[in-house]
């Protein structure tokens, strides 16, 4: 038996990796996508004043602390049975929309972009953001950095800090924004809309205009037919901050929608002996293994899932792109996993439009940004859509508001089963007896999980130092034959 290891090393050693096993004849035998266990985050949160937890959960991840802060803030509101005023909700969602623009932009230009702009089999040294900006032009690189700066700026104005916001408290926020800040945020938001449109056009020209790439997206290698979940508003349109979680089947039929406090009725977890992390699945359908289909409870929670689970986008430009997306890819739902990249850019445009919609609301500068809680704290659930999937925070407290239990289901955890299935199918399809296992080929396996942008930090509730991928190829006796390093 030969083993191939695709190994994103971290300095913590605890790192996700893909282990591919071949039989003695060199054919694909099996593969496992493993995420390490880092112990005790939920336990670490117990015994603390609950309003401290949204700040603490910020520390889970250096990439999307805004998502944890927002899910935590909503959970704390629920614990105190308090409904924040409209202005507070809008300010939180405004911050969150700006964060989404930063996060989705970075993913496209730094992670997805290299595979499509440089090519999936391009030399490793070129397949990164440096290669991308040199190919598409320094001016575009400047826009990427500008988009990030604007996003950080809005987060700082509303959230108090550039990366780890800290202003959400039970019932709302510690502060509002001034009219001068509103004007500045609006200007940045309008720029963000233009940038998102430009990025979608670039995707259209570079990816959709290339038949090979379109074939790659539409091909069977990266396709699975599963359930999809995503938060929707009262009109069943995509919403990142508030609403119910919509669940649709592989046939596109909605199984139902659940409110945050109903998640235990919908989501259960399956345990496998080869990994510490559990596999969430739809309780109403049941666990049937790592298989596609309507009878399998495996679900996906990604930008593509959100589009599939909704009836459309709540803003006009994003809605037009939504319609183009489904007409190009053959109708709803879309099952091709590489289409997640396109869905992410439609969400980028929606987030920018929503940013402007919120900041131009007459009540956005109101002083009514907090409702003081008056009830005894008990238990509460908060759900937001993190960029990488539905994020659920559930807190229990005693009557003093001290946490007695904490449970989190994060984006990457939701997607653990589909990522396992996607990497296995890609490896199975690409690695053939007698074929050369090249760096480019292994990158195409890696593309299967990169589409999900899995976050080991979130999945393990820590912030591991992240490293480039290291791909180790071993012979039948386990000896290292070759090591391929791949910079992100």
């Amino acid at each position, binding site marked *: 038996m030969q083993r191939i290891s695709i190994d994103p090393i971290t*300095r913590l050693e605890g790192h996700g990796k893909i282990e591919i096993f071949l039989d003695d004849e060199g054919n694909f035998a099996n593969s496992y996508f493993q995420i390490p266990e880092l*112990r005790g*985050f939920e336990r670490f949160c117990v015994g603390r004043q609950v309003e401290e937890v949204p700040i603490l959960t910020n520390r889970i991840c250096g990439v999307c602390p805004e998502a944890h802060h927002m899910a935590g803030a909503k959970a704390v509101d629920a614990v105190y049975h308090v409904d924040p005023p409209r202005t507070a909700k809008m300010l939180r969602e405004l911050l969150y929309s700006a964060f989404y623009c930063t996060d989705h932009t*970075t993913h496209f230009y730094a992670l997805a972009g290299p595979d499509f702009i440089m090519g999936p089999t391009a030399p490793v040294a070129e397949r990164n953001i440096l290669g991308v*900006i040199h190919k598409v032009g*320094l001016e575009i690189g400047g826009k990427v950095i500008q988009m990030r700066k604007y996003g950080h700026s809005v987060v700082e104005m509303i959230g108090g800090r550039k990366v780890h916001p800290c202003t959400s408290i039970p019932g709302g926020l510690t502060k509002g924004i001034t009219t001068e800040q509103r004007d500045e945020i609006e200007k940045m938001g309008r720029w963000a809309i233009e940038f998102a449109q430009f990025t979608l056009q670039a995707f259209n020209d570079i990816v959709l205009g290339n038949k090979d790439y379109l074939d790659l997206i539409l091909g069977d290698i990266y396709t699975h037919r599963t359930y999809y979940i995503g938060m929707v508003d009262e009109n069943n349109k995509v919403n990142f901050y508030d609403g119910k979680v919509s669940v649709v089947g592989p046939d596109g039929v909605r199984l139902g929608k659940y409110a945050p406090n109903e998640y235990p009725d919908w989501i259960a977890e399956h345990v496998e002996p080869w990994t510490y992390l559990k596999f969430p699945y739809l309780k109403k359908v049941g666990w049937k293994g790592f298989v596609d289909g309507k009878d399998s409870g495996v679900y996906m929670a990604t930008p593509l899932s959100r589009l599939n689970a909704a009836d459309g986008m709540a803003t006009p430009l994003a809605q037009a792109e939504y319609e183009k997306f489904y007409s190009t890819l053959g109708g709803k739902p879309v099952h091709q996993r590489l289409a997640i990249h396109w869905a992410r850019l439609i969400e980028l445009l929606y987030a920018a439009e929503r940013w402007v919609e919120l900041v131009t609301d007459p009540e956005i500068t109101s002083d009514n940004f907090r409702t003081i809680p008056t009830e005894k704290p008990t238990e509460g659930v908060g759900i937001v859509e993190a960029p990488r999937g539905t994020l659920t925070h559930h807190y229990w407290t005693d009557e003093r508001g001290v946490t007695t239990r904490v449970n989190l289901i994060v984006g990457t955890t939701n997607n653990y089963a589909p990522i396992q299935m996607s990497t296995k199918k890609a490896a199975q399809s690409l690695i053939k007896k007698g074929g050369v296992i090249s760096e480019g080929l292994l990158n195409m396996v890696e593309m299967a999980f990169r589409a999900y942008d899995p*976050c080991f930090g979130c999945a393990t509730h820590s912030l591991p130092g992240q*490293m*480039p991928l290291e791909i180790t190829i071993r012979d039948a006796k386990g000896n290292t034959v070759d090591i391929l390093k791949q*910079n992100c």
Partner: protein
Amino acid sequence: MKTLVVGLGNPILGDDGVGWRIAEEIQHSGSLPPGVDVVCLAVGGIGLMEALEGYEKAIIIDAIVTHRDPIGTTSSFRLDQAADPSFSHLTSAHDTSLPNAIQVGSDLGIRLPDQITIVAIESQKVYDFSEELSTPVAAAIPEAVRLIMEILRENR
């Protein structure tokens, strides 16, 4: 001369928080040379590069696990002289490595430090959530602070 001292890591993951603890000691030492700013961060790659904008020199303090040196060993080296500049928290799996990010920033005309020194502390307990450092890592703090203050004086 503007210098940035960065404490890098996760302050709730045991020894991984040592960079923050050292940065805080330096911040509160009362003997910071003029032109030195101190921050604690939990970002790598592009986010870390963005934090370095406008500085001429930088010192990044981070936990490291090599298994080569005794726990608590403090070492320092220039980023451009590191055998593998992608180690530690310097890289973000969600975008790129710090050297790549710095190259991107430089190509885009962003003013970035011409010298980045890494101060690394060999660490042990980085798998369990805790706000406490292990004893040998905590014991390394005074030596790391002394070393960084010396580098700051040399940089003047």
